[in-house]
Every structure is written in structure tokens, then in C-alpha cells.
């Protein structure tokens, strides 16, 4: 394990950071929110991100991507977290690209990966069905029918669902798991965009007797269950990185405020009560970063990374949660205003925590994996 970024990764980080700070600061998210933008993201911006390699970071070179590692994707996700930029990076470039790339289905890879890498398609994973993340409890069913299957069920928290071209749907087929590739415009698919508190994209998707041909079945049985778990862990690392980026930025802004805000005739950062809280948060951030890098590297090494991923997601959830709470508290009243940006961080962190399992979910998963 390296646990330090390579020179190339440091360059990737710096260029992503510079680009997003200049072109897509938090004001960009605010504008999309206030304009009630129909897409919820800016395709022109996504095109420019694509030119920088974001979209195809995990797409193999043979299919027009960069073929880089999850560690590299996490570097990008962290920078997206700093500016809270709404982009179909997680849905399409991480979850979608990884699921299709590892599906073993050459036709799907040929049809979708080049479009993903070119930023010309949005793919959404339709997995969760209830308020809490329970990937092992799927009720959406695929029933055998003449010439294929019929899909019925309802999915929630489908990130980028209402702008997706392709839906990757996890369903029950007999007693096992199956993954289907479903055209978002197929008959019987009803997509309801849900306006979320963080102003990022999500949708509810209902499948009512959707007829699918045999080619729609991406994977089934044990292979599908393993593929889904691996893809979810890939996504969890990216989400953890986004959480860390949001937490680092919230902390940096808070720290700057402690050094500038005057009360009682001195900088509030001189008060030990605040210094110690800031220092404890700094320790937490370092812990979260180490856990994240370890998880990404273990995934890249192709090892059983499940425990490391749960450690990383749990740690990044808790750390980011603390960072935004301290961010609002230490800014005082101004932190409560919509005009100030700290609230955007608090809201985004709330959503990122829930995505693919919160800290409690991952504590529980670690305990189960450890055998107790």
C-alpha cells in the first residue's frame, strides 16, 4: 500500500481543484437550484469535465476511457465534494462505468462505455427501495415471460434518474439477484424527479410490467450479487471521497473564520475551547483520509476490500457530519443563513451520508463481516 498520492495523482488533484474552483464554485449549484434547472446539472460544464478526463476515468482505454484506478476516481470525487458541484460523475462515471465494465457483456461495453467516456450518456443505478439502504432486501421482481422478462417494482433515491439514458436495475429473479439494463424511455417506466434538500439530482422510478428482451439481463444469481456488491463498494469509496472533500472545505472555511472573526477584543481562534474542537476535527479528517486511501488502494489491488470500504464510508460519514456541524456552530448566526454557503455543505453531507449506507449501516456491516 502506498497511502500517499503519486505525482500524477497530485497533478490530477491540482488541475481538478483549479478547474472546479474557477468554473463551478458553490455559486453554480446555487444558480441551478434557484433557477429550478430542469436537468439539475450543466451539460456544458460536464463536457468540459469530460475533456479533463473525469467522465472516462474508470472506462478502460480500449473503450475510449483513461482506464485509471479507483484511487484516481476518488481524487476527482474529493474535488467535486469541495465545490459541491452537481455532475453525473458518481452515477455514470463511477457506478455505471464500473458495473458495465465488469459485467463481462461485450455488447453492453461496446454500446455504452465509449458514450460514457465521451460524456454523451447518463447512466443511473436503480437499487434502493426503502428509506434506509438495504441492498439485501430487494422486492422489485423480474418474472419470466415470452421472449424475456417482465419487471415490476419501485425504486427510490435513484441518483440522476430523471436525466438518465440507461437504468441499471437490481431486481429479484426467482430466489436470486439479477441486474437489468433498461432503457429509461421504455414502456412502463415512470420517472418522478424528487427535489432533494441538497439540490442534487435524485428520482423515484416505477417499473410497471416493463417488458425486457433477453439482452437486458446483465447478470444473475451469485455472479450478479457479487457484481452488485463490488460496484456498490466502488461507489461507496467515491462517496466517501466526496464527503471528505466537502468536510475539508467546510473545515478550511471554518478555520479561516476562527482566524479572522473578532469578539471580546480578540480573534475567536484564540479561545482554547474552539482550538481544541478544531484540533480534534483535524485529527478526525486525517483518520478519514487514511481510511479512504486504504479502501481505494485495496479495491485497486483486487483484494477483498469490503471491511476497508465500510471503515472508510463510516469514518468519512461521521467526520464530514462533524465538520459541517462545527462549521455552522463556529460561524454563529451567519452559518444559519441561506446567503452564506455553509448550509449547502451541511445539506450535501446529509445526502452523501445516506447514499449507499450511513455510518451505522457500515458499522453493522463491519461487525457482520468480522463474525460477530
Amino acid at each position, binding site marked *: 500500500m502506498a*497511502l500517499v498520492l503519486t505525482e500524477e495523482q497530485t497533478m490530477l488533484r491540482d488541475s481538478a481543484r483549479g478547474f472546479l474552483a474557477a468554473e463551478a464554485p458553490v455559486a453554480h449549484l446555487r444558480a441551478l437550484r434557484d433557477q429550478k434547472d430542469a436537468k439539475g446539472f450543466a451539460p456544458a460544464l460536464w463536457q468540459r469535465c469530460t475533456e479533463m478526463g473525469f467522465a472516462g476515468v474508470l472506462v478502460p482505454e480500449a473503450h475510449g476511457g483513461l482506464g485509471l484506478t479507483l484511487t484516481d476516481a476518488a481524487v476527482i470525487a474529493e474535488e467535486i465534494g469541495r465545490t459541491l458541484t452537481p455532475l453525473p460523475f458518481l452515477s455514470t462515471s463511477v457506478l455505471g462505468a464500473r458495473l458495465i465494465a465488469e459485467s463481462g457483456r461485450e455488447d453492453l461495453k461496446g454500446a455504452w462505455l465509449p458514450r460514457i467516456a465521451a460524456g454523451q450518456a447518463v447512466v443511473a443505478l436503480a437499487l434502493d427501495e426503502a428509506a434506509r439502504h438495504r441492498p439485501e432486501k430487494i422486492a422489485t421482481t423480474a418474472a419470466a415471460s415470452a421472449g424475456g422478462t417482465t419487471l415490476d417494482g419501485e425504486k427510490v433515491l435513484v441518483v440522476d434518474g430523471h436525466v438518465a439514458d440507461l437504468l441499471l436495475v437490481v431486481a429479484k429473479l426467482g430466489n436470486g439477484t439479477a441486474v437489468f439494463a433498461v432503457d429509461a424511455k421504455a414502456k412502463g417506466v415512470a420517472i418522478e424527479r424528487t427535489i432533494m434538500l441538497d439540490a442534487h439530482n435524485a428520482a423515484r422510478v416505477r417499473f410497471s410490467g416493463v417488458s425486457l428482451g433477453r439482452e437486458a439481463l446483465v447478470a444473475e444469481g451469485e455472479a450478479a450479487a457479487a457484481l452488485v456488491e463490488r460496484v456498490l463498494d466502488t461507489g461507496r469509496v467515491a462517496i466517501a471521497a466526496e464527503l471528505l472533500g466537502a468536510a475539508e472545505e467546510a473545515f478550511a472555511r471554518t478555520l479561516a473564520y476562527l*482566524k479572522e472573526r473578532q469578539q471580546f477584543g480578540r*480573534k475567536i481562534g*484564540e479561545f*482554547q475551547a474552539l482550538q481544541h474542537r478544531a484540533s480534534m476535527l483535524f485529527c478526525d479528517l486525517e483518520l478519514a483520509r487514511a481510511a479512504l486511501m486504504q479502501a481505494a488502494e485495496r479495491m485497486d489491488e483486487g483484494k477483498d476490500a469490503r471491511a*476497508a470500504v465500510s471503515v472508510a464510508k463510516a469514518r468519512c460519514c461521521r467526520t464530514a457530519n462533524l465538520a459541517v456541524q462545527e462549521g455552522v456552530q463556529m460561524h454563529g448566526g451567519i452559518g444559519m443563513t441561506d446567503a452564506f454557503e455553509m448550509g449547502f455543505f451541511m445539506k450535501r453531507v446529509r445526502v452523501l451520508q445516506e447514499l449507499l449506507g450511513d455510518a451505522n449501516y457500515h458499522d453493522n456491516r*463491519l*461487525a457482520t463481516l468480522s463474525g*460477530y
Partner: protein
Amino acid sequence: MSSSSAAVAEAAELESFRREARAWLEANCPPEMRTPVRSEDDYCWGGRNAKFQSEAQRLWLERMGQKGWTVPTWPRDYGGGGLSKEQAKVLQQEMGKLGCRPALWSFGIWMLGPALLRYGNEAQKKEHLPKIARGEIRWCQGYSEPNAGSDLASLGTRAEENGDHFIVNGQKVWTSYADKADWIFCLTRTSPNAPKHLGISFLLFDMTTPGVSTRPILLISGKSPFCETFFDNVKVPAENLVGEKNKGWEVAKYLLAHERDMISGIGDRTSRKPMGVLAADAIGRDAEGRLDDPALRAEIARFEVDEAAFAALMARAGALARAGQIDPAFSSVLKYYGAELNKRRLELRMSVGGADALEWESGRSDEGAVARTWLRTKANSIEGGTSEVQLNIVSKRILNLPGA
């Protein structure tokens, strides 16, 4: 050679070192020294009056000492192994795989050695380092005083220069194992009127020098690992001054950073099973195989998340240090978190043990072993600089907060 072929050659060399190290360990580490450490009593501290638990323990120290692998990265001239940091890591990995116990536990290795390598003169290095490496001299640390705890630099033990020697008078406290140590590295005040940080000198002396006496302190654990140490007109040769007179604080701080690294690395690694599994074995499981105490299970799982993250942080700190990218104050992050984590670990072990862990004097509880360790860990966030002092250091040195 291109950088990638150089890297390939380097990796091949490291692999060949790994094979050599493994072969040597297999041939030289006695089987008794490949079993898990059961308690602190299993550690070998060396020294003039070393008491070895077994011939295997003595032999293991002798062999490792001769090889220089008690201090793998120290130069060979001073009794070390002369290994690179990468080789030392490989050695550590191989020792871990074979389950080899450390051959020697030593404040000389962890604290004084690094300070002497940096600040000692040639004669001091030649005299003291090889004896530390071979475990011949056991050292103790004369830092804290009754009125100088967190505010260490206000220490009052006096050393007056008198021709070719110093005369030392005063008292130290919390001197770990002073009653068993052969020599002491000691902070003394040599310039009473200078600002407190600028009047301190770093002296080394033999604990058998006339005027040195020690008194063990009975702690809440029922054990006495710490002493009060008294100096009454102790005559210390001037050549035993490390660094310059009145500039001992610099040496003291450097050494403290190493002490922090040592404390942050502590923790019970005697068992390879996760705490949750040990708890489930002891308490019982529900129908689905989960620890049959949901709230305790959740707390243990949360602890184990933090423990795994901290292990990753320690590994990352090592990697950053090797890459020359670490902040010198980072040891305070590790010390703070490691100490607090170890206290949580033992609180949970007491909860897991329940009533059984409360038996102070019984064979069933191994004479209250867990309880005594639990009480001992309360000092983790006090010794080597309290948690509050570490947070002050992070505030000032890393976060650059004002007036801290």
C-alpha cells in the same frame, strides 16, 4: 537507468532482503519467542540486572543485539543494523508473519537513541548507543517534576557547573522504572535567571552515582511502574552534557516527539481476533450469530471502525515520513488519538468482561489482569504530554491558530 528500471531493481533487492531476513529469523528466533505476549511481564527490558524469564528470551536478545536488529535503522558503527527504512519495514513484516516478539523493550531505543543520534557527540554515541542496542544498559527518563507536569519547561532540578562536573540537586516524578534503570537522561536547570526554555540542559548519568535514590509510587492499578527520583548533590561529569549547555529544551522536545510515537503505537495486540468476536464468544450470540447485546455490539463495531482507521493513519504517517512529506507536529495527532483509542479499548474490554473482570485477586481473572491494564491506560492521555497539550500543539503548529 530509467526511473522505472531503477524501481524494479530496488524492488528485487528488497525481495532478496526479505528472503534473507526470513531465513535468519527462522534459524535464530527460538520457538518460545514466537508466541503472543500475554502480559507486560513477558517483555524483556535488558539492563545490568536483567532478569530473563527464560533462556530463550536471553538468547533471542543476544542474537538480535549482535545482529543490530533491535535497532534496525541505526548505523552499524553504533551497534545498529544499518538497514534502510524500507528494509526495516520488511523486517518488521517478516517478524509479524512469524509472530516474533520484540527482543528488547527499551526507552533507550525509543527515546534516548534518536536524540543521541541527532544531538550527541561522537564519544557519547560510541559509548551509549551500542549498549542500548545490545540491551546492556537500561535507561529511564528524568523529565516530569512535582511542579512541572504539562508545563514541563518550568522544571526546577538544578545542575551547577563546578569545574569538570555538574552538581545536581532536585526531584523528578513519574520516572518510569527508575528503580530498575541503570542510567538516566535528565532535564536540569543550568541557568535559573534565563527564560524558562533557555536555561535547561540535558544530562546523562549513572543511577548508581552517590546521591541518587528512588521510591516507587503505588498506582491505582496496584502496580508501581513509576518512581519518585531524588538527587542530592549528584556529581555528573561535564562530558555527559548532550548538546550545548542551556539548549537542552531542543533535545528534550525532539525526544518527546519520539516518545509520542511510542505511546501512540501502544495497544493490545496480543490477540488477533476482533474484540467483537471475543465478546461474542464470552457473552453469547443470537439466532443470527450476532453478539447477543445489540448496544454493546454497536459500540464495539464503532470502536473497531476507528481502530482500523487509526491503523491506516499510522501506516500513512509512516509512508509520508518515508516520502519526506510529514509535518513534524504530526506525532501529536497520533499521540492524541492513539491514547484516547486505547482508553476506549480497555473500557470496552471491561464491559465485555463484566463481573468476571472485577475480580482483583483471583486465578479466574488472572489476578485482575484486564482491570489493571484498564487502570494503566488512564495514564496514556497524561504521560508524554496530556491529550490537552497535544491538542494545543496541533492548534499552534499545524492549524496556526492565533495566540495558542
